[in-house]
């Protein structure tokens, strides 16, 4: 409580947003650098958090608590557990890449007026989103979380609707129409989810009388706060619905392809790699923490939905004609894995799910940003318009391939670790589910390789022939991501050490223990012993 590190971490990008927005219209580049600067400062703070955080220590650390709205029993309570730390890290890490990748995405068109300052707006909004995402990863007060969970929709909405692809199939009005359709769809889906959650939040308030996650969880554990079974289930559903829309879980997913398809690649990354993570994160922290019994009650259905997401998402991805939509459906499939891991209720599953959030963020970022570079070159999102790119732009193709391999979770790249953990974790409790889920790894290979084959290999298309290879800025964006993917793939320990304790807490919230192996092998950990 000495130095409000968490508040500052969230405040820095917010301040940055305001300053960036204030930059005069002419000084566009200044705005960009300012935004980048602030995002890097945030990254530094996030690293500081990770350093200050002791994995062995209390469940929530660096906590802050101030009174806020006493009449609603709302307090301004912040605190991070391992899961929060890594996700804050992910967010703070990706934003600079998003900004750098979107460097030219928001340069104003000629037709716009003097006072219209899209560039400033674009970067300001990105920072605003970052601030809100970070604080919702930090909030340990349900109301506080809800506020930002909802509020972040607005800047996202403007990012999607206001800054579509320049490179868009079809006429400009048509593009604008599709774009605002996507934006509205995104907002309404999430708003409806959020409002239904609001009803549940109110219900929780009526039942519990305050919003402090720690107090309620403690009270639940101690049995001093007992909810009627049905109440708990209804509240759980209210919360889960909102998170499932955000995540997104089948059949609430259809906003994602539109949103990712119409928005620029960096924004698409922002959506799927950062904002959507709040949904899965909230499932882990709030659904399980507040409503353990209801969570267990709902598990079968949720597992089935997650399975559908995995298989369905992958299959539909195979059938896409549009690169970005394909990636979107791939993400839907991956979110299926994450949710599967969370509700498998095993430490492997949940650690895996948490790692998955990070790794999916990285891999999608890599793949999507490269795809964005590709699209910006050719001016089309249609897979059919490409072919033989590897001949003319080998580096681009190579990075694209690595991104793809990460997406199909090849061993040695980070996603493999998380995906396998999720599968093992699920299998340990629900063998059949686990086996069906493994089909996902084949399908993932299918859509990734199909995408790569159709765009990068084969005879060189005329329009592609003059395509330049990655520029320095672009390489600088992609290279670190790839490095991270490999690094976390061969040495994921850095994350698991932080995450595991938090997961243990979550497991104890839901009063679950890992299923014991049939045969207890003494020499199990003999290797480390040596």
């Amino acid at each position, binding site marked *: 409580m000495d130095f409000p590190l968490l508040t500052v971490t969230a405040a820095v990008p917010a301040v940055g947003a305001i300053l960036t927005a204030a930059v005069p219209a002419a000084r566009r580049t200044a705005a960009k650098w300012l935004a980048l600067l602030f995002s890097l400062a945030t990254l530094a703070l996030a690293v500081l958090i990770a350093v200050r955080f002791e994995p062995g220590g209390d469940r929530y650390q660096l906590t802050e608590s101030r009174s806020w709205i006493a009449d609603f029993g709302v307090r301004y309570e912040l605190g991070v557990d391992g899961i929060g730390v890594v996700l804050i890290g992910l967010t703070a890490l990706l934003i600079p890449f998003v900004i750098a990748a979107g460097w030219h995405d928001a340069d104003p068109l000629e037709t716009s007026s003097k006072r219209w300052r899209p560039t400033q707006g674009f970067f300001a909004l990105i920072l605003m989103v970052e601030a809100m995402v970070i604080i919702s990863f930090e909030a340990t007060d349900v109301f506080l979380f809800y506020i930002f969970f909802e509020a972040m929709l607005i800047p996202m909405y403007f990012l999607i609707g206001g800054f579509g692809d320049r490179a868009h199939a079809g006429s400009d009005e048509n593009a604008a129409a599709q774009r605002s359709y996507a934006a509205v769809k995104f907002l309404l889906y999430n708003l409806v989810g959020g409002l239904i959650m609001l009803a549940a939040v109110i219900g929780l308030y009526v039942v519990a009388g305050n919003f402090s996650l720690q107090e309620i969880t403690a009270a639940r554990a101690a049995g001093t706060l007992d909810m009627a079974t049905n109440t708990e289930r209804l509240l759980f559903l209210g919360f889960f619905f909102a998170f499932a829309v955000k995540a997104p879980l089948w059949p609430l997913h259809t906003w994602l392809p539109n949103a990712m398809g119409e928005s620029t690649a960096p924004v698409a990354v922002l959506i799927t790699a950062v904002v959507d993570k709040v949904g899965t994160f909230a499932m882990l922290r709030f659904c399980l923490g507040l409503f353990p019994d209801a969570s267990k009650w709902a598990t079968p259905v949720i597992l089935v939905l997650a399975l559908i997401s995995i298989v369905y998402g992958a299959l*539909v991805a195979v059938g896409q004609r549009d690169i970005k939509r394909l990636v979107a459906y791939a993400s839907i499939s991956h979110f299926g894995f994450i949710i599967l891991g969370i509700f498998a209720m095993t430490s492997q599953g949940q650690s895996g799910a948490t790692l998955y959030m990070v790794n999916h963020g990285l891999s999608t970022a890599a793949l999507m940003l490269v795809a964005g570079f590709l699209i910006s070159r050719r001016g089309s999102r249609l897979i059919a318009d490409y072919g033989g790119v590897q001949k003319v732009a080998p580096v681009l193709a190579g990075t694209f391939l690595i991104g793809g391999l990460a997406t199909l979770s090849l061993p040695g790249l980070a996603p493999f670790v998380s995906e396998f953990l999720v599968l093992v974790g699920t299998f340990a409790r629900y063998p059949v589910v686990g086996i069906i889920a493994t089909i996902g790894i084949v399908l993932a290979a*299918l859509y990734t*390789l199909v995408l790569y084959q159709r765009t990068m290999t084969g005879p060189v298309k005329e329009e592609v022939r003059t395509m330049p290879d990655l520029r320095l800025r672009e390489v600088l964006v992609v290279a670190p991501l790839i490095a991270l993917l490999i690094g976390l793939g061969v040495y994921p320990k850095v994350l698991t050490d932080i995450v595991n304790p938090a997961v243990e807490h979550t497991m104890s919230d839901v009063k679950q223990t890992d299923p014991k192996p049939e045969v207890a092998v003494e020499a199990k950990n003999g290797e480390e012993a040596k």
Partner: protein
Amino acid sequence: MENLIALLIAAPLFGAVVLLCGGRRLDKTGHWIGTLLAAVSFGIGVVLFADMLGRSADERTLTQNLYTWIPVEGFQADMAFQLDQLSMTFVLLISGVGTLIHVYSIGYMEHDERRRRFFGYLNLFVAAMLLLVLADNYLLLYFGWEGVGLASYLLIGFWQHKPSAATAAKKAFLVNRVGDMGLSIAIMLMFTTFGTFAFTPVFGAVGETSEGMLTAIGLMLLLAACGKSAQVPLQSWLGDAMEGPTPVSALIHAATMVTAGVYLIVRSAAVFNAAPDAQLVVTVVGAVTLLFGAIVGCAKDDIKKALAGSTMSQIGYMILAAGLGPIGYVFAIMHLVTHGFFKAGLFLGAGSVMHGMNDEVDMRKYGALRTYMPVTFVTFGLGYLAIIGFPGLSGFFSKDMIIEAAFAKGGTEGWILGGVTLLGAGITAFYMTRVMLLTFFGEKRWQPDADGHEPHPHESPKSMTIPMVILAFGSVFAGAFFEIGERFLKWLEPVTGYSHGNPPVSAMTVTAATMVMLLVGVGIAWAMYGRRPVPVVAPRGSLLTRAARRDLYQDDFNHVVLVRGGEHLTRSLVYVDHSLVDGVVNGTAASVGGLSGRLRKLQNGYARSYAVSMFGGTAILIAATLLMRAV
């Protein structure tokens, strides 16, 4: 000493990284770096081998634990290696033959502007394969396993501008993925059963669980093996994989990739020994593939495809042997090694032929090449004799052992398997002789290639012929060397165990029978292709021939059922997603809009109608209040 193990992998891996990230500036030197690092790896292997020979049989296992890879509660995966005789064998084979193929490629890929990348991929391939055989737990093995898959994907699809190549690469990777499913499920089963998936503890605990569970694990491992080793039903990728440059085929077929399956099964001996049913399935798969490959091999006119068929069938032998349990493990590996020599030799020879014939692959357009490329002819010939099991050459010993072992299985199984292996030997003799005759004997049937260049065959450069020669030596003497004094048996037995089984017939009889089959096969082949001229355009051929040409329609089956079906499925799902899932949402929105449109008609602008609604409202209000009281 054990700290060297990591270097085995590190060297080629380093090469791969350097070559792939190095950029154009390495184009000049790239291939040398690659070859060098492969050789380094081989050198270290030899050092370690020498060291291992220096120890007594029971202290030959070295382990090296780098760090804990994935630690989550009970789930502990280590980045740890284990080097025992079995791994050693593979290390030498992989790095040795691998290096030779590197050398060969220097010449073969000379005119390809992406040669640097090619060598990068080759190094990656070697590294992944070494990781596979050195891992001390199944998850790490899985790492190498998929790494091999990736490398094969990159190499098969090396000529990406050819759509066929890209497709073949994709196919190989996907089919392998299906196998990988098996491996990952097997790992999960081990984890839930034993709480670990490291070799030593798992094999130690085998006794403590049910046979059913072990059978399940065994079958899953077999599925994995089928994927990598191109066994029925996952063999379809192997033929297409010939789209890759010939050295790649050599590497895949001789040293890396397809041998992984055999390694997996032999490595998991403990599991299989305890699961007879699984073993039976393994032998069946092996037997079926053995014949399948052989039959396919008989009908192909593409020299590489024919050799591919033969590989399939030879691997079939090994799998079958591995399925026999302690009787067969050693011989499976032994055949694997000898096969590594002669198959590599054969492929390099084929490559050399193609090199001389403007990359023509159709054997019907070869003929009478023996005089034009003598070295190739001789080395290829020796490889040929080795594979058909000509007495004294390596193939003879290793294959003979497997056939004996098959009989030694005992009972009707023994007879059936033995019969199959014998038959296989015969067919092998037939199709290899066919290849030989079509390529090197008979009259010239050369055709100008697409751009009208008349082929004028010539011997390949030294960088290509030298490896061929070395390999030829291997294929001639390896078998004898292993067999004399049962060196190989003594070497491997501590790891895999060995039992004689109960051969119903004496070794001599088996050998004699094999000889007979061999002669029959060669005879028929000579009768068909040696005596009468060979048509340049393949005759329609019998039903079986046509079936064999199309891989016994197994691929068509895949195409119709999986590919077509899959396409339909995805298309319909896309439709569902758009019209149903999304339709519901848009529908609700639209209906709200419609309702709104209808409701706003009520607001018709006439003050009196507003008054009416007020009046009505009041009436209802009063009525409701009274009603509340009434009820």
